[in-house]
């Protein structure tokens, strides 16, 4: 016990020492890595550009001598100098070399910024990087010469559908709205186009206009057209068209879009301000939803007006019109007396034109719960019409459904008095759940699994034909190996002889039962040689048959002599023979058995 504790303590101390050494090595290596040398290089891809053309500023920061934490470069205040900056895109490169048994590594990070100048001038761009407390400057300060005229500042709010009034170079963006002032939830159509004097094949929308606080729906694009702006002909290429639905009141701004022209040039549009008026409080229905702005109609229908109790039918409520149809609020559905209604399946068929709208269908599955003339009350829907600047409330017509109490009865007339309480019909009975099993103690299953499991069944099924096949195979083998009846009889006789010989051999020493066994052996030999005629004959007659069968007189004499000796010994005359004499008698009998005319044909 003490030795075990001592061993554990040693292991703990050695582990602690190992961990401490590892930590120190790691700390030392980390410190060594932090000691690498940081350098910075900066250059422009081109030193002269025009206003609006993008230029690449490439900055490479490297750490030589180990370490993988490369600091980020610090750029001058480019925005203050009128640059729009995009990026950077970065790439990372490491290099490790092993020279004279010493390793050295370097890490280089390349930053590429895209600068778009907005005014002409000469701009110096000093780039630095900080490594710990040190500030490292790029050895060469990039200088950019920007030519051309400063980009004109656009008015924030153009007039509705205002076209440009002055030519703005060979290509420029222009955004328009169809109305400068509107109500919350009312549709505003925004269109962005590109004016180009030449065919610019590679104009890409880089930045979408900002539609914050608007619900936006795409509209079909406009068509390519030609326009003359201040005497200059332009090709007007359609950009995007959107139907916008302001979600709050106030001054909302659509921020400008930006497109790239070719690989290097970027041009931006102008911001647009929209005045959004709140919905008038006067005449506003209670619980009115601000999404219900536009012009709508409403209708309701059922797929069947005559049904049975419990037979479902479909009630469809359709709201059709112009406005933000996707988000309209149909309001609370009226209670249905004597009917059960499920949540609706909502479908929308939108119009395809410049004005957003469509048909919104609410399909309810309704199940009548009692017989009679049941009425679906009107459903009311309120909306604000910005054209007339007023709230409108529309409603569906009431629908009466005739409900029969069973399949055979005619539908109840509308004029019949409504029953005070629903009487359960045969259909109702059918819909009642069977009652629970209510006992004092829970009846349990015995839990005895069936003996016939799938595994047992499978092996039982396989075993039946397999056993049949095995039995058949064994029979076939037996038949094939056993041969004909004669050979079977020979084999049987041989087995009997072997048994008698073994018994006689065993009785040699003592003499008990020796002679009877030898006598039986010789008798069987004689009968076998005589064939069926020798069965059951006395000795004399048997010897005669043997003679007729061609047995020599000498062998017959030997047989008779041996049988006589056996008789004499069995009945007392030769009882005093020794074991040697018995051996000689047995040898003689064996000789007769195997090599005489008596044995002819027995061993074939």
């Amino acid at each position, binding site marked *: 016990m003490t030795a075990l504790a001592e061993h554990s303590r040693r292991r703990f101390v050695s582990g602690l020492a190992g961990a401490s050494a590892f930590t120190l090595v790691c700390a030392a290596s980390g410190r060594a890595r932090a000691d690498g040398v940081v350098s910075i290089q900066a250059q422009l891809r081109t030193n002269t550009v025009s206003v609006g053309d993008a230029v690449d500023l490439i900055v490479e920061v490297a750490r030589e001598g180990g370490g993988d934490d490369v600091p980020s470069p610090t750029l001058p205040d480019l925005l203050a100098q009128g640059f729009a900056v995009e990026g950077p895109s970065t790439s990372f490169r490491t290099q490790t070399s092993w020279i004279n048994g010493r390793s050295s590594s370097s890490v280089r990070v390349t930053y590429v910024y895209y600068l778009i100048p907005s005014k002409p001038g000469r701009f110096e761009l000093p780039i630095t990087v900080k490594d710990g407390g040190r500030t490292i400057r790029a050895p060469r300060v990039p200088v950019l010469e920007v030519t051309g005229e400063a980009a004109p500042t656009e008015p924030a709010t153009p007039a509705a559908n205002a076209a440009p009034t002055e030519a703005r170079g060979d290509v420029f963006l222009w955004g328009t709205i169809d109305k400068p002032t509107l109500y919350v939830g009312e549709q505003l159509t925004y269109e962005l186009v590109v004016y180009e004097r030449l065919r610019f094949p590679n104009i890409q929308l880089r930045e979408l206009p900002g539609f914050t606080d608007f619900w936006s729906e795409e509209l079909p694009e406009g068509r390519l057209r030609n326009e003359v702006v201040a005497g200059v002909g332009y090709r007007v290429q359609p950009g995007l068209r959107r139907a916008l639905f302001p979600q709050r009141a106030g001054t909302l701004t659509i921020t400008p879009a930006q497109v790239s022209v070719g690989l290097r040039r970027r041009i931006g549009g102008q911001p647009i301000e929209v005045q959004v008026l709140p919905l008038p409080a006067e005449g506003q229905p209670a619980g009115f939803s601000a999404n219900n702005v536009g012009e709508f109609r409403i209708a309701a229908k059922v797929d069947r007006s005559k049904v049975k109790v419990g037979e*479902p039918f479909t009630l469809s409520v359709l709201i059709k019109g112009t406005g933000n149809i996707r988000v309209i609020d149909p309001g609370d559905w009226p209670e249905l007396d004597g009917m059960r209604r*499920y*949540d*609706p*399946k909502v479908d929308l068929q939108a119009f395809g034109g410049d004005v957003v709208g469509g048909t919104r269908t609410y399909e309810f*599955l309704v*199940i009548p719960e009692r017989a009679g003339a049941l009425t679906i009350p009107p459903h009311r829907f309120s909306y604000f019409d910005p054209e007339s600047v007023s709230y409108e409330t529309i409603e569906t017509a009431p629908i009466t459904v005739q409900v029969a109490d069973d399949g055979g009865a005619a539908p109840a007339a509308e004029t019949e008095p409504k029953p005070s309480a629903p009487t359960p019909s045969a259909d109702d009975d*059918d*819909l*009642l*759940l*069977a*009652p*629970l*099993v*209510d*006992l*004092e*103690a*829970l*009846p*349990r*299953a*015995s*839990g005895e*699994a*069936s003996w*016939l499991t*799938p595994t047992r*069944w*499978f092996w*039982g*099924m396989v075993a*039946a*034909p397999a*056993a*049949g096949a095995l*039995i058949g195979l064994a*029979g076939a083998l037996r038949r094939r190996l056993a041969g004909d009846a004669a050979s079977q009889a020979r084999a049987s006789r041989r087995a009997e002889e072997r048994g008698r010989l073994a018994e006689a051999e065993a009785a040699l020493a003592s003499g008990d039962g020796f002679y009877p066994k030898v006598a039986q052996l010789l008798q069987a030999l004689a009968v076998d040689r005589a064939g069926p005629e020798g069965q059951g004959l006395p000795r004399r007659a048997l010897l005669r048959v043997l003679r007729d069968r061609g047995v020599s007189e000498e062998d017959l004499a030997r047989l008779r002599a041996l049988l006589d000796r056996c008789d004499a010994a069995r009945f007392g005359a030769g009882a005093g023979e020794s074991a040697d004499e018995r051996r000689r008698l047995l040898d003689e009998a064996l000789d007769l058995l195997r090599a005489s005319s008596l044995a002819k044909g027995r061993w074939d």
Partner: protein
Amino acid sequence: MADLGDIRSLRGARGLAAALACGLALAWSSPAAADVVDDAYVAGNQAARAGDWRAAVAHYREAEGLLPGRSAALSFNLGTAYAQLGELGPATFHLRRALQQASEPSAEIAESARRNLGIVRQRMEVAADTSGAQVDRPETWWDLLLAAVKAPLFGWLALGAGWLGLAAHLVRRRLGGGAATGTRSLVGVLAVIFLALGALHGMALRAERLSPEAIVLPATADAREAPGAHRKSAFALQGGSRVRIVERVPGWSRVRLAGGLEGWLPADDLGELQRRRHSAQASLKAAPAIP
């Protein structure tokens, strides 16, 4: 040596004491569990009589958790309570469990369970029609035939025909001659029964093992094109629909409707009918704590 002998005798005494304790615990645990199961079952019945189906479900679930085996009455009550609550998935699951042979339903319980399953099925179809979700097709005579063929009786018939046929064949060979003529026809008939019933029963067992039957537990479940909640929804499945699980990955199962429609569902949304103990989390979530 004397110390070693003491230690051995001490160990022997400890082992004996532990065995006695185990024996006593086993002897006492069964009646105690039985009492608790009965108490929970009776409490569930009382809550159901009072119309508090939510509490009834909670009590029945407690009894189900404590019961080591199966009970057709408990599964029937649980399924019916879920049906009263309008939770069609768990209702279908438990009512079908009540009808399984392992639950040993009485004739009355089986008839009631079939009736309630029919009503739940009607509600499922109405709900599926409303929501547009897919629902399994109603059971046909073919489904009933497959269910019958799966029963152990058919297995015994096939097995008995096989061995009886073998015995008759051996007798025929032994007797030989004119006596064999009669047994020859018998062997032929038994061989046909053995092959036909064995093939049908084997196929039914194989189908059950490879693609076990399950019930969709939530009100509706989105079947996705691949395992993962971020995958595109292929179609919606109505709660209570019967599906077969054809593939499993951790947390998800690919299911097939009878018509061949396939999709992936979270494994917790499925209740496997042949599972010995139901542990679907979805239905556990539905059951509130017992007040």
